[in-house]
Each structure stands twice: as C-alpha cells, then as structure tokens.
C-alpha cells in the first residue's frame, strides 16, 4: 500500500498540533512521518531542485546567504531552519511544503544538512548542488574524529553523482573529496591571509590525508585552512575557480572583499564581520553562480542577507548593544575570539556553557580554545560573566587562561544574567553553546518579546 499520503497527513497534523500547543522546533512531526513511510523524503524531494549545504562550521550562515538570493529574485523556494538539519526536520520541512498528495508547492529548496546525517539524507534528496564549507573537529562524542566526518560526507555525496560540488579548496580534508567522487567539482578559497593577528591554535589536520606526511603551508588563513601542500605525495591545495583575492576592509559589522571568478573581479560587501564569514561568503557566491544566478545577484545576496539566528545577532533590550554569537567547537570559538579581540572599544563577555546532547556532552574542547587571547585586550575587556550548566568548568578554564579573579564572575541564574546584560553600560558579547542559546532566548522572549526560533 502507498503510505506516502498518510505519512504526509500525519506529519502536517502533528506539526499543527504542536504549534497550537505553542511548541515548535521539535523532531516529532518528521519522526511520526518517517515511522509510517521511511522513504518519504525521497518521494517528496523528487521534483524539487535542491541546494544542500553541509560541513562543520558556517552551514547556517552560508545557507542564509544562498536563501537571500532566492528571496531577492522572487523564486519559489523553501529552506529548513538551522535546528532542523537532521532527517526528521528536513522531512517535516518538505512535507510542510507539499500538498497532501506529495506534490511540491515550491520549485526550489535550500537545505542545511548536518554533516553526520548527509549519509542518510543526500541519497534521498538527490540535490542539484552541494556546498561543503569545511571539516573541523566538533563534538567528538557525537561526530567522532574528522576522518570519520569526512567519510560520512563522502558516502552521502557518492549517492548523488549528478550534483555539482562546491568544495573549500583551503580545507585539505574537504578538498580531498574531489578525487574520490565522479561529480563535477568547483573549488573556492581564499588566496590571501585574512588576519593580521591570528590566535595560535591546534590544527585538526596536520598530516596529509593521502600519505600521512606533514603538510607544508605557503600561508594559513585560520586553523588548518590555507595553502597546504604535501612534500611527499604532492597532494596540494587545488587552484580555486572562485577566490577571495583581496581583503579590502573589515569592521565590526561587515567586510569588503574582492572575489575573482574566471578572471573577473568583483567587489563584495558582506553584511557580517569576521574571517570565517569571508569563507561563508565566497562559498555561497560559488554555489549561487554555479546554480545559475548571475554574479550581481549573488553579490547583492552577500550584502543583503539577515544575520542568522545566533550569528552576531544584535539585541537592543539593554543600555548598550548586545550581540549573540553561537560557539560550539574549538575552531569556531577561536574564530569568534579572533574577531572579538580585534575590535576596538570596551566589551563585556558572557560565556554560557552547556553540556546537553546538542551542545556535545564532552566539554573538554574549551581547553583547546585559546582563551589566553583575551588577555591581549588589556583594559578594554571590562568583565567576563560565566553561566550555563558547566559554568564552573568554564570559570576554571578562564582562570587558567590568566583572567584575573576580580574580572570573572559566575552567574548561575539566567534571569540575573539577563539583568546584568541589560544594565551593562559597555557593549556585551554573548557566546552561548547551542542549548544555552535556546534557554537564553526563551527567557529573553518572556521578558522582552525577543522572537523564538521556530517563529
């Protein structure tokens, strides 16, 4: 018997029921649908042209830039939310955008996909294009080591030989996918260093993925990204088709860069700051132009997209601006610190560390983050507040980084923490892990009407 239609109806009804109860963002509707019809996603995605974005860091921001081009050109599309990037959430999103008979209501979909889940998802989605942002160590209790993540992505992509792959040439792990797969591949990268002062950090991939010799680098942009080459087997950074050729300016709110593609140079304004967002921008630009958008449409998406949920999101409920930046793994957190400590002006930092499943239950990664860099801010760092389930561990890490006891404060209670943020006369930068961000937003929404994530 054909179970697709009952599955779609069950999915839609569950979603509606949850909304009526005022709850959103759960995996339940997709779970219900997949129990009735395990291959529902493949059925629903058959006639939708899909862009998939995966990789460890930058998925959400890259997806928002890509989405912005669909918005600005008036295309009929839908996208999943960052919290719904597993098979359950993606299935529910497809069901919500189809009729009960499974006919798609949109021509296109922009789908952010958890890197460990690509194995199961890409096979069913059969996307036209896949953008792989990078591969870093991330929540080792969930994802295992980087070679494992790389293998998951490779298996996923091997089921979609017709998809165009946009790969980060500067990530030796990501770029190695090209030789393993028959797909048409387009590389993007950054040809020049992006930071004047770069934090020293542990490399997640110091040894050649092919022969295990140590890489040599012409330059490093951050972490293990840059111009690598293996002195033994010759594996090296492929020449990107789309490159960032110059960093023209960087401020607290934006960057201006030069992107060169097929010999033509464009000046691009990105409405987000930070070196990691330069990668997101050039990756999204590449995906968009490969998907058929013009360079000028892609450029206008880079400058026009809205800050993604928890990615330098700005709140104005306090005396001073409050910005929230999600942190989840050493590479991402080091980039955030790199950016924040290079800003001019005084700052109060708030770090909220949780160890729920979605955050990663192992918090030892905070010891791989170079919090010592905060000392370089000198007088302009006014206070560091620490909260979350593992606040005590975070405080210990900061003390060991050399932050003076007098500058550090553990505030366990979120209401008190929000009070402190709101009354700060110095700009506040909040760095929560994923579930800490959800908790904080829930309180903010109750207190100040800040919107919740499923709205």
């Amino acid at each position, binding site marked *: 018997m054909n179970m697709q239609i009952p599955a779609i109806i069950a999915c839609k009804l569950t979603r509606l029921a949850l909304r009526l109860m005022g709850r959103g963002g759960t995996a339940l509707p997709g779970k219900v649908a997949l129990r009735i019809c395990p291959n529902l996603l493949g059925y629903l995605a058959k006639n939708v042209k899909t862009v998939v974005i995966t990789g460890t860091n930058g998925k959400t921001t890259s997806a928002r830039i890509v989405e912005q081009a669909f918005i600005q050109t008036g295309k009929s599309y839908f996208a999943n939310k960052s919290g719904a990037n597993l098979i359950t959430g993606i299935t529910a999103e497809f069901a919500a955008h189809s009729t009960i008979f499974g006919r798609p209501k949109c021509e296109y979909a922009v789908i952010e996909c958890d890197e460990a889940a690509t194995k199961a998802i890409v096979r069913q989605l059969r996307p036209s294009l896949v953008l792989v942002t990078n591969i870093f*160590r991330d929540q*080792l209790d969930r994802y295992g080591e*980087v*070679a494992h993540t790389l293998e998951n992505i490779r298996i996923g992509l091997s089921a979609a030989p017709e998809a165009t792959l946009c790969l980060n040439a500067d990530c030796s792990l990501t770029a190695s996918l090209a030789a393993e797969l028959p797909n048409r591949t387009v590389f993007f990268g950054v040809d020049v260093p992006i930071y004047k002062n770069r934090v020293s950090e542990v490399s997640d991939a110091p*040894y050649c993925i092919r022969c295990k010799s*140590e890489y040599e680098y012409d330059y490093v942009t951050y972490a293990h990204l840059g111009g690598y080459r293996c002195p033994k087997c010759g594996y090296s950074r492929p020449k990107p088709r789309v490159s960032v050729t110059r960093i023209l300016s960087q401020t607290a709110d934006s960057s201006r860069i030069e992107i060169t593609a097929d010999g033509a140079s464009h000046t691009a304004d990105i409405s987000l700051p930070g070196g990691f967002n330069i990668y997101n921008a050039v990756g999204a630009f590449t995906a968009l132009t490969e998907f058929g958008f013009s360079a000028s449409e892609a450029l206008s998406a880079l400058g026009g997209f809205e800050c993604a949920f928890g990615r330098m999101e700005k709140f104005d409920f306090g005396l001073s601006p409050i910005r929230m930046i999600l942190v989840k793994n050493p590479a991402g957190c080091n980039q955030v610190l790199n950016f924040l400590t290079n800003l001019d002006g005084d700052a109060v930092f708030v770090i909220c560390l949780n160890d729920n499943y979605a955050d990663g239950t192992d918090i*030892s990664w905070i010891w791989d983050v170079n919090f010592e860099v905060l000392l370089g801010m000198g007088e302009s760092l006014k206070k560091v507040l620490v909260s979350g389930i593992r606040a*005590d561990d975070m405080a*210990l890490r900061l003390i060991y980084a050399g932050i003076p006891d007098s500058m550090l404060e553990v505030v366990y209670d979120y209401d008190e923490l929000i009070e402190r943020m709101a009354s700060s006369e110095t700009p506040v930068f909040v760095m929560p892990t994923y579930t800490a961000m959800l908790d904080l937003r829930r309180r903010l929404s109750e207190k100040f009407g800040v919107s919740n994530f499923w709205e």
Partner: protein
Amino acid sequence: MELKICHLYPDALNLYGDQGNIICIRRRLTARGIEAAVTGVRVGEKCDLTQFDMFFIGGGQDFEQEVLLSDLAAGRAADIRAAVEDGKTFLTICGGYQMMGSHYLTHDGVRCDFIGAMDLYTEGRSERMIGNMLFRCTGENSGSLVVGFENHSGRTYLGPGCTPLGTVICGRGNNGEDGTEGARYKNAFGSYSHGPILPKNPAFADFLLKTALERRYGSVSLEPLDDKYELAAHEYMLGRLAQ
C-alpha cells in the same frame, strides 16, 4: 626547585583539551615557586629524553596515532621505556595511555605493537564508551576522587606487572568489565579520563607532581593552594554523578 617537563607529540596527540594538563602542571608548580620548563617534542624531532623529570602524552585521532608508530619504532619507544624504568613521572591519557602498553588488537584481529613500557594491552571494539566518569584512586595513588570524561572504543587489560590507578564509581574505565580505571607502573600513570584530568582534580594533580619532585629532591611537601575554582568544577560533577 625546578621540573623539566616533556610534552610528547603535542602536534599529533591533542584531541580532547588534554593540553589543559600542561597548563595545570605549570600553574601548580609556579604557584609554589617551583620552576616549570615545558618542552614540546614533535613527531620526528630528535631529543634526548633523559634530561626530563616528567612526561605528558595525550590522546589523538586514530589517523594521527598511526603517524606516530614509525617515530616510536625509530628509537623513541626504547627511550620512553628507559625513562619509565628510571622512575620518571609519566601522565598518559587515553590514546597515549594505550600506547604505553605492549600492543593494540584491532577489532578485526590486526596486532599493532606499541611502546611496551607498561604491562597492559588494548583491544579495539566497535562500541565506544562515552560519558562523564568518576573513579577513586587506590590508597597508594592518593586515594582521591577523580572526575572526568571518557571516550574510547579500546578496552584495556592490565597484566601482573602494573596495578590499577583506581576503581570506577561511575562510567566504564579500562574495559567496562573489571571495574578498574587506569594503571600505574613505577611512576608511570595512565588514565582514560579527559576533562582534562588535572585542573579539576587538584589532589590527584599534586600527588602526581610530588612523584616527580620527590624522585629528584627527596621528600617534598607542597603548600596548599586556593583551589576555589578547581574544587567548584570538581564538586559540581561529583554531585551530578553521585546521584
């Protein structure tokens, strides 16, 4: 007083924040006016190991661990064995701990020879043992409680030539079967506990430092430190796991 500390393979074995142990060793020594000189020795780097009082080896990804085997075979394993026999202090964690043993048996039966400095070996299994852990060190190993986090698929079995570091109260420990966690032979210690292990287990950290100081200087007493933050992190996890 001073301790010369060797951080072995910081380039390859650096997976779970274990370099926090180095920060802790340095901090707890300098707080007492003891000089701490830390030298990182990378894969393939020539270095005379006899100059050091204390060694740290962390855990790594399987991929990087394979890179080390040729370095170990090229004489480093013998140097490490000699240092252990000489009573030098070793703290080895997870992959580094496994490497101190005689060998590793992969789950499809391939045998991989390791350093052979401690009488133990490890068998690879597909199921990983992941989660917060709590164990009590045996009496001769300070008797203190240690909190941490384990994430390993290898099961480690001790031979008669070494003793367990402690007894598991919460978590899986060496192999999930015999209730033991970690190992000690002379002044070489191994544990599966990430966290990193030293910062939030100050009693164990001081015990470990004392083994190195006493080998070099005879009887030593360490003045107590203000461990407010250390104990807060320790007690939080203790409270959570004791429930």
